[in-house]
């Protein structure tokens, strides 16, 4: 399941619910992305994520489907914030459950790379230095390209 969330998220609670009463799962890997106080030397007061409710979730659902198709998973949860996010607060939470750890590690890594480069979300940082819209870094694109290189040819 994937969802866009306007209110603050609690990764510990999400993970506790995700792992509760699992008897078929041998591995759960989770990732939490937090809002940093500074990026590239720029102080950040507030992070704001613009989204396109409806469309953003539809694309995120497609990314979930692609992740489930590629890896042998039992379950997957991704929750992404939009709107204002305070420094230190979670921006994104991903958890994947699998029978064995390798699929879980790789699926979490893959889904995060896809969310960063394909989910229709736009980050803005406001701080003492002014307003800055964030674009994907070359490293984000390189991370995502790792998976393309290993995708089977149709």
């Amino acid at each position, binding site marked *: 399941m994937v969802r866009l969330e306007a209110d603050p998220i609690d990764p510990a609670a999400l993970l506790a619910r995700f792992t509760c009463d699992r008897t078929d799962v041998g591995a759960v890997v989770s990732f939490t*992305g937090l809002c940093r106080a500074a990026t590239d030397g720029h102080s950040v007061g507030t992070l704001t*994520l*613009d989204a*396109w409710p*409806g*469309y953003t979730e*539809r694309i995120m659902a497609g990314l979930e489907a692609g992740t489930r198709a590629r890896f042998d998973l039992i379950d997957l949860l991704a929750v*992404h914030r939009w709107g204002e996010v305070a420094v230190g607060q979670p*921006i*994104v939470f991903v958890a994947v459950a699998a029978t064995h750890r390798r699929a879980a590690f790789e699926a979490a890594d893959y889904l*995060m790379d896809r*969310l*960063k*480069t*394909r*989910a*229709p*979300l*736009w*980050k*803005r940082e406001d701080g003492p230095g002014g*307003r800055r*819209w*964030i*674009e*994907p870094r070359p490293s*984000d694109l390189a991370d995502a390209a790792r998976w393309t290189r290993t995708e089977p040819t149709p």
Partner: protein
Amino acid sequence: MPRVLLFGAFADVAGWRERTIAGDTVEALRAVLSEDARLADRLARPGTLTVVNQIMVRGDCAVGPEDEVAFAPPVSGG
């Protein structure tokens, strides 16, 4: 007239998020948007996304009066 949506820095630069604009192709709409020099600069950058009726398109295509056309900068989630 097609409904045009802007997201992220595009909406910020233009000072609006949604309006109807006369035009029967994506390029015609881009030309109208580009009358705003700051928006023209943003639209011309590589990686600009164009989404017609919630389907991403590359290059030009025809749009009708009931269509919804969105322009956005490269995404930056996660």
